[in-house]
């Protein structure tokens, strides 16, 4: 049994090919050193067995050598567990980061230290005006000042409230935008599912590495938008929401539909996006509404919380709208209750004498169920018609005033004005207790909510960076390593080439120099 003549050349050739492949992969890695989501690839080789048939028939004392090197697999180095951890953490992180960012937009409304927060000062000025009124109940100027202060306060309320409405609408739009982005990503993933599946079916030994990178990157992005569960199957990746409702199933995508509906809080028609996840895959198409109850992570959860949560824990914009309504309601109600006990001053407006002194006049008008104002600028918190008609209708006196009668000419009676002024220190106001401790509480709630969200986002962000570092530690391209590999493959190529030369020389010897004795 003799060895095939060109066997050695063949072996050297596999070495050459493999070195070239290694060079290509190294070049590919280096080229993608900064590509987001790129996973380093590596050539896994294995040696070629000696021919089996020959091996079986091998005579004694005959050494059989392997046939060189061949590609086992061209794969990527990725840790699925770290991916899972990263995406899990990312959902949480982006929820809190979204919350912190959204709340920061409303922070200036409460931050009087930075020149915002007009409310506390405006309320203080109203009560300063009541104080002045108690000293001059029969003069026009302090009455004008009190009415002006009340108008300014209402304006401050309205300004704050309409800003909250705007921020809420920003969240509403963001919800729609996030839903669109989710749909976009799930659709791309479904398309990649198909391509990867086809490619890997056709090339069983080849992974669709670069396509998988793309899909993994999309999964990373998706996990920032909404909390998901996913599992790979047959080259596909199937995605569901945290509740198990399918988003992507193989090639099929269930889309999230954003439908306009009546706003549950402001009651405006067609201004509020409701999200429905429509499952068209099963025999019975079903739809599930996505709300703060079943979306727990991702930007979507953050936006939903900011738009819809009216509770005090992890409050959203509606909570602060509610606090403002409650405050306005308490001020209006308590001032009205006292003011309507008082009697108006029988003054005259533009030369026309007003009604004689009477009680039962309201100071403010406010219906808490309607809110302070709406998105169209209609204001529901305002001064009563009587006060708008004339400042003499501000009641300071607790008994009727009749300037024509010396007995009842009680122009100096300021008892009602005193009661109004003292409201600022009262601790038994409707729902709120004391005006300023309530305002302090709300301000601290805003500040606390932001700080809470921001610090959670910070620590999750650090975590996320850590996990991502672990991930890149495994999957990322190290230039030093690639350089080393380059030199390695360069040398192995050189060596294989030298082998070919050596083989060539051996064949030269065999063919041209042998059997020439006596020629």
């Amino acid at each position, binding site marked *: 049994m003799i060895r095939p003549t060109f066997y050695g050349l063949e072996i050297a050739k596999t070495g050459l090919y493999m070195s070239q492949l290694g060079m290509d992969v190294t070049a590919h890695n280096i080229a993608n050193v*900064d590509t987001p989501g790129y996973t380093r690839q590596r050539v896994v080789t294995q040696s070629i067995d000696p021919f089996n048939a020959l091996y079986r028939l091998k005579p004694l004392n005959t050494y059989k050598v392997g046939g060189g090197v061949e590609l086992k697999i061209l794969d990527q180095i990725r840790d699925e567990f770290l991916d899972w951890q990263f995406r899990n953490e990312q959902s949480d992180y982006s929820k809190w980061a979204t919350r912190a960012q959204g709340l920061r937009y409303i922070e200036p409304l409460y931050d009087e*230290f930075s020149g915002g927060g007009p409310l506390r000062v405006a309320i203080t000025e109203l009560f300063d005006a009541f104080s002045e009124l108690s*000293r001059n109940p029969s003069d026009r100027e302090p009455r004008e000042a009190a009415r002006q202060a009340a108008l300014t306060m209402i304006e401050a309320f309205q300004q704050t409230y309409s800003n909250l409405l705007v921020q809420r609408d920003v969240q509403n739009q963001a919800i729609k935008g996030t839903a669109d982005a989710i749909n976009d990503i799930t659709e791309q993933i479904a398309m990649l599912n198909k391509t990867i599946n086809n490619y890997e079916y056709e090339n069983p030994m080849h992974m669709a590495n670069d396509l998988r990178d793309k899909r993994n990157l999309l999964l990373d992005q998706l996990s920032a938008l909404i909390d998901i569960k996913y599992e790979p199957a047959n080259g596909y990746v199937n995605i569901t929401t945290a509740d198990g409702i399918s988003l992507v199933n193989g090639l099929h995508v269930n889309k999230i539909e954003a439908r306009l509906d009546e706003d549950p809080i402001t009651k405006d028609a067609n201004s509020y996006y409701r999200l429905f996840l429509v499952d068209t895959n099963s025999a019975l198409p079903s739809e599930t509404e996505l709300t703060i109850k079943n979306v727990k992570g991702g930007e979507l959860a953050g936006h939903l919380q900011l738009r819809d949560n009216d509770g005090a824990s992890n409050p959203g914009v509606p909570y602060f709208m509610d606090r403002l309504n409650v405050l306005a309601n308490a001020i209006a109600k308590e001032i009205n209750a006292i003011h309507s006990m008082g009697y108006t001053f029988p003054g005259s407006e533009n030369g026309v004498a007003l009604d004689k002194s009477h009680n039962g006049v309201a100071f403010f008008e406010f219906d808490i169920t309607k809110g302070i104002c709406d998105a169209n600028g209609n204001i529901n918190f305002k001064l009563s018609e009587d006060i708008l008609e004339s400042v003499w209708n501000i009641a300071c006196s607790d008994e009727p005033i009749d300037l*024509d009668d010396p007995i009842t000419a*009680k*122009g*100096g009676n300021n008892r009602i004005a005193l009661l109004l002024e003292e409201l600022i220190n009262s601790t038994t106001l409707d729902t709120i207790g004391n005006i300023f401790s309530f305002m*302090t509480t709300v301000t601290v709630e805003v500040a606390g909510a932001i700080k809470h969200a921001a610090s959670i986002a910070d620590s999750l962000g650090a975590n996320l960076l850590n996990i991502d570092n672990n991930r890149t530690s495994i999957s990322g391209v190290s230039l030093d*390593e690639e350089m080393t590999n380059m030199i390695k493959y360069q040398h192995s190529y050189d060596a294989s080439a030298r082998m070919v030369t050596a083989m060539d020389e051996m064949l030269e010897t065999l063919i041209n120099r042998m059997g020439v004795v006596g020629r």
Partner: protein
Amino acid sequence: MRVTNSMLVSNFLHNLNTNMNKVSKLQTQLSSGRKFASISDDPVSTMYSMQARFRLDNLARYQESVKMTKSWLTQAETSVFDLNEVYKSAYETVIDAATDIKTPEDRRIMAAYIGQLRDHVLQTLNSTFGNKYIFAGFNTTGSYPGNQLEPPYKVDQLTGDLWLSGLNITRYVPNYDPAYDLTLTRADIGYNAIKEKASMNVRLLAEKAAQKLVPAYDPTYNSSLLMGEAGFDKDKLNAYNDYIDARDQYIDDYNEDFALNGAEYQALFEKLEVEQIEFWVGTGTKMDAVLSSFGLVGTGPENLYSMLDNLYNDLMHGQSVPHIQNAYITQLQNMQSGLLAKSAELGGRMNRLDMLTNRYEMDFINYTQLKSDAEDADLAELIMNFSMAMNVYNAALSSGAMVIQKSLVDFIR
């Protein structure tokens, strides 16, 4: 652990960013002088700061209130001082007059002086702070029957009674028998008619007659002359009768307008007595900025004004020395001690206000300190931290620059 390029870069960026945030935060604190740039930086300090600001605002309101109350009371004090001078002068005049040495002419001169004092009392009672009467309870504006200002204290021209906001002080006796009839009778006017002042009132009627409101009346006409007797004048009799009619009409109108019985008068008195104009001078603390008028002049026929009026008439009409001594000296002494008590009460309130002013000044310093503690940054500490943060930032920059630019590539030929 395998360290890759993107790891290096992202770690480096992250740390750089963290450092930059720190520097930026410190820089904001330095440039604004405040401990926190936004309320979310420090919710707890925000709370303290808001509480301090709220207290400062409250304090400012009370300080203003105390200042105004003081102004009102200073005005009242001046008036009380004036009245005290009136008492003193009246007392000296009475002592002076209560000797037989004085001639009726001297007494008339004294009467004229007392008349001036009497009018000054009325003016003082109607004294104002700004445009507000300060001794009339809630009636600070006066009343405007027929758009004519009537100050709270006024004197009825016919009867010489002192009125306050519909209460006849002269005729009212506190806690009097409720059945007591306060209606005006002819005798009330008749009594005055014999006096100098009454003839003045009759002159008033004559003036009204000139305006055709009541017929003219000649006080020198003796109505008892019979028709046909010498000196009988039909026109004068008619005029006299018209005067009597006009007087009766006046009495009827008067009684109709103020047809109050004793009980109603008592109720009105009690109401007027508690009409205090109060201001808040502290949380839950009110202070009366005016004086109860009754304490100043007294009530009943012996109130300061009516007493001086009577003294005037008595001096004018030559009442006996014992009468003047008996009637006025004790009264004046009693009333002056009452006035001194009022004066002491005023002084007490002023003292309290002074104490409040001082306390609020201290409170202002305290709360400003609280606010500053909550809001203001400690500059020395900040500058230290700032330069430390800058150092770290610089170190991060230079180390990053060294690590990132080199790789194996630089060493392969």
